[in-house]
Structure formats: C-alpha cells, structure tokens
C-alpha cells in the first residue's frame, strides 16, 4: 500500500522523475498510435486493400480505354500511391477525433504531453501504415506488369517525395480531426483528399480534361507530386515537378503544424 500512493515525504524522490522528457513522450505516443492501428483490424485491412482494388479496377476496367502512351499501370501507379495517402489520412483524422472526444487527452495534458507529441504519434502511425500499403501496392503492381526504370537514386527521391506528401497530408488530417466535432464528421471531412488525385494528372492526362478543369488540375498539389513520382520511377525528365511537389508538401506541413498547435490549445482549453 505505502509504495502505491506514497505519503508526501516519501514520494518526493519518486516525484522528481514525474513527467517524461519530450522525446520519451513522443516515442510513447508513437508506439501507442501504432498499437492502436494494429488492433483496429477492420480499418487497417480496408486501408491496405482498397488502394490495391482501385489499382486493379483502373488498370483492367478503364485502362484499356485510356491512352497515355505507355502501359497504363506504369502511368497510374503514382496516382494510386497518392490515393493511398488519402485513405490513410481518413484513419488519422478519425483517430485524432476519437481521442479528442474522450477523456484521454486531458490525462495526457495533465502528464505534460503537448499537442505536438500527441499529434506526432498519430502522424508517424499514419506514415507507417502508408509505407505498408505502398509496399503492398508496389508488389501487386509489379505482378501485373509495372516496369519501373528508376535508378537507386530515383527510387530514393520517389520515396522521399511520397513520404513528404504522406506526412503533410497526415498532419492536415490531424488538424481536421482536431476541428471535427465527432469521428464521423472527421471521416467525412477527409473526402476532399480522396477527390484531389482524380482531378489531377494521375489517372488521365490533363490535356484530355475539359478546359475549365485544366487550370485546377495543373495547380493543385496532387499533380506535381504524381508527375514527379512518375518521372523518377520511369526515369523520364521531372522538370520542375519535384520542387513544386516539395513546396506544396512543405507549405501544407507548415500551415498544418501551426494550425494544429492553435487548434489543440483552443479545443483543450474549453470547459
């Protein structure tokens, strides 16, 4: 008993350690989010399988009718990877929102866990989920005829751009999760991220789109990310797409991180 709830005097030494370092907090939050992800089997399977199903759908159903000057799987793969990030981000938004509606965030705050560590847990878990689904999609793509020409450096750059995109989109989803009043709303609000890749250069060349849509398609974040991924994977000229992609990702990340700090403060300072 006495060891469990120590009297004021005896507890002093133990209390000196109370409150973990920021690094430990972040690591604990990351392992928590990863564990929760692993145990949420339904959502995990959906997030892993859906992108593969979509790729098969596009390649075999629509692919024959879409002319891109190359095997369609070579053309569409980057778009499927970007879609993956969208699916994964919905889980992030729902996870953050679920935490916010329960009592656990108060407990974390009373242990001095800041908003950044809390969200970092969710974002890192999202990145890991996406890495797994990306590998899965790549594996299936290779099996159905995807033939990349990337050099090792090309692969690294492609992986880096994808990772930057995933982290940016996950952090944005985390903000959506903070803002949403309920997990359901959070889920619905990430819909835009699933839509963006469709209105980009990802599935059909922009030149085939109606004129009014081309302006949007050229100047939205999914297009440079997809163009750059495609160029590095297929060893074709990337032009300015890589820098544009990184600028978009950096911009989204900075804005989301700043917004999340403010929103976390606001949401948790209530009541």
């Amino acid at each position, binding site marked *: 008993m006495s060891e469990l709830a120590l009297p004021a005097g005896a507890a002093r030494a133990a209390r000196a350690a*109370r409150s*973990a370092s920021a690094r430990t907090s972040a690591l604990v939050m990351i392992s928590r989010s990863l564990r929760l992800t692993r145990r949420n089997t339904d959502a995990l399977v959906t997030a892993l399988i859906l992108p593969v199903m979509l790729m098969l759908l596009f390649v075999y159903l629509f692919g024959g009718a879409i002319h891109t000057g190359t095997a369609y799987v070579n053309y569409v793969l980057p778009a499927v990877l970007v879609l993956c990030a969208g699916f994964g981000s919905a889980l992030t938004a729902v996870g953050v929102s679920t935490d916010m509606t329960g009592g*656990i965030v108060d407990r974390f705050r009373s242990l001095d866990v800041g908003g950044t560590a809390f969200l970092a847990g969710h974002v890192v878990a999202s990145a890991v989920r996406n890495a797994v689904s990306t590998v899965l999609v790549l594996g299936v793509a290779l099996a159905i005829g995807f033939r990349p020409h990337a050099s090792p450096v090309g692969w690294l750059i492609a992986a880096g751009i994808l990772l930057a995109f995933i982290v940016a989109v996950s952090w944005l989803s985390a903000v959506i999760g903070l803002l949403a009043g309920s997990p359901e709303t959070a889920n619905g609000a990430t819909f835009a991220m699933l839509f963006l890749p469709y209105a980009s250069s990802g599935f059909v060349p922009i030149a085939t789109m109606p004129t009014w849509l081309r302006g949007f398609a050229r100047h939205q974040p999914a297009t440079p990310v997809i163009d750059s991924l495609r160029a590095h994977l297929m060893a074709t000229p990337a032009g300015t797409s890589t820098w544009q992609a990184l600028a978009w990702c950096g911009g989204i990340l900075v804005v989301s991180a700043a917004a999340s700090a403010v929103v976390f403060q606001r949401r948790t300072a209530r009541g």
Partner: protein
Amino acid sequence: MASDLAVEVTGLRKAYGRLDVLSGVDLTVERGSVYSLLGMNGAGKTTTVRILATLARADAGTARVAGFDVVADRRIVRRRISLTGQYTAIDGAQTGAENLVMMGRLAGLARAAARRRTGALLEQFDLAGAARRKAGTYSGGMRRRLDLAASLMGSPEVIFLDEPTTGLDLRGRQAMWQVITGLAESGVTIFLTTQYLEEADQLASRVSVLHGGRIVADGSPGELKQQVGGQRLDLVLVSGAAFDETVRRLGRRVVRCDRAELTVGLATDGTAGHVRGLLDEIDPGRSAVQRFAVHAASLDDVFLALTGHSPATTEPAHTQKENSHV
C-alpha cells in the same frame, strides 16, 4: 510554501460566454485529508476541478495546489497531482497493463519501474486477473478502477476525483469506495466531487456544498447535519390546504416537503419540549397535523435546506450521466 494546505482557493470565477459557472469560490483542503465538493449536476464541480488540475483557466481568483499556483507553476502542479474525470481516460484497444505502463512512461518512470508499479496497482485495484485483457472488455466499475490506477502511476500527492462513481452500479460503487478509502489511508490528499450525499458522508472528512457558483456550506458531515438541528420532524398534514398554510407559515425553515404526500419536514433538536413547541406553532387549532415522526437528519436535509433542491439519490444509475461541463 510549507503550508498544511493541499488546496487553497480564493475568489475563483469562471464564465462560459454569458453563463457564470463559478462566481467567487473560496475553499481550502488540508494535506492528507479527504475533501468532498458536493453539488448537483451543473453546479460547477467539474469546472472547479479542471481549474485546479490546470486544464482550464479561471477568469479571476487564485488557486494553489500542493503549494504552487495553478497558472504560474502549472508544470510543477501537474507533476504533483492526478485527475480522474468522468470520462475514462484509457484506451479500450490496449490491455489494462499496457494502459498503465503507457501512463507510467509518460509520468517519467523508466520501463522497468513502470512495469513494477503497474503490477502493484493492478493487484491493489483487484484487476490483476484482467491485466492482459483489452480494457474495452472491462465492466464499468473495472474501467473506473483502471482509470484511477492509471492516474496514480506517477505517485501524485493530491488526487482529484471528478464524480468517481457516477454511472456505476451498487457493487461498482462500493468497490470504488473501498479503493478510495485505501488511498486515503496512505496519506495522500483526495479531492472528490460528487452529487451523492451518501458518498460524501462515507468518504470525506470535510464537505463543501457548491450551489449557484458559490460555496453555500462547509464543514464536516456531522457539522453540516448540525446546521439543520441534528434531527428532523416529519409531519403528515390532513389536506392540501393545511399543507399550503404550513409551508407558508414556516417559509425557509422547511427542509423538505412533498405536496403529493402532504408531508413537511423541519429541523429540531429532538427534545419533547421543542417538538411540542413546533407542533403548537404550526397547528394551533390541533386539526392540521395528522401524524408526526422524528428522524436523525441526513445530509439530504442539509442539501435541501441550503439549496432548495432535492439532491441526487444513490440509487444505481442505469444511464451514463451526460456531460456536465460546458
């Protein structure tokens, strides 16, 4: 700093929009005691606790917990307190043990120490058998106990319990009372809010009644009962007219009344002379009162006399209480 007070609050005010939740709360809690803040749903109990636990900020007033200011020294305060709220702060998808180890690590314990303390707390709170089960499969009472255990991982010296038994059945409530009594014996300070008088009576050595954003009464359960005379005279009246006349005549001295049952209760010291005097005063014509009885006063009477409202009963609640903090 070397004060004997674990909690020291003066002039605490908090409004949400135009709604005043706290309008000048003063209270003190001695180190090592069990203190209960008693009030109805929406009285401001949760708001008070959140301010003291550094999770919300007061609009005015000062609060010191464990000797430190809850605003200026909030990081120090956080290291010395724990809060168990009305919503269990545990992950349903993690096992009981995983939840505790996680909280221990966040509280700054090394991995091995966190595991040791987890084992000890699970044992103490009668959860050792369920340690490897996901917390989502626990009963309501087990979840509350796990939640409380989680809050104790960092060895706090002031423990805030916000309505620890709301929504629990009788068994769950009694198990929780045992756990709280055990904690109190170990010398920590416990600050608990409740809407159940019986709970305050059972656990606390000091009780403050929070009503309308202010402390309207303060003292030991016995002292509070003394305020209404220690005994209660219950009258059954003959008619609705006699009831209305009696209630009008007694005004604020009525500590409980029920028109449907035609009953009126009022404070007395229980002596024959006092009871006779009251009966003569109320019923000079000797026709209005049908029967009378004298009971020991309960905290219910105190509450009713102070606030004009019936408190919650300790019947097992079948529905989870709704959110009472704004």
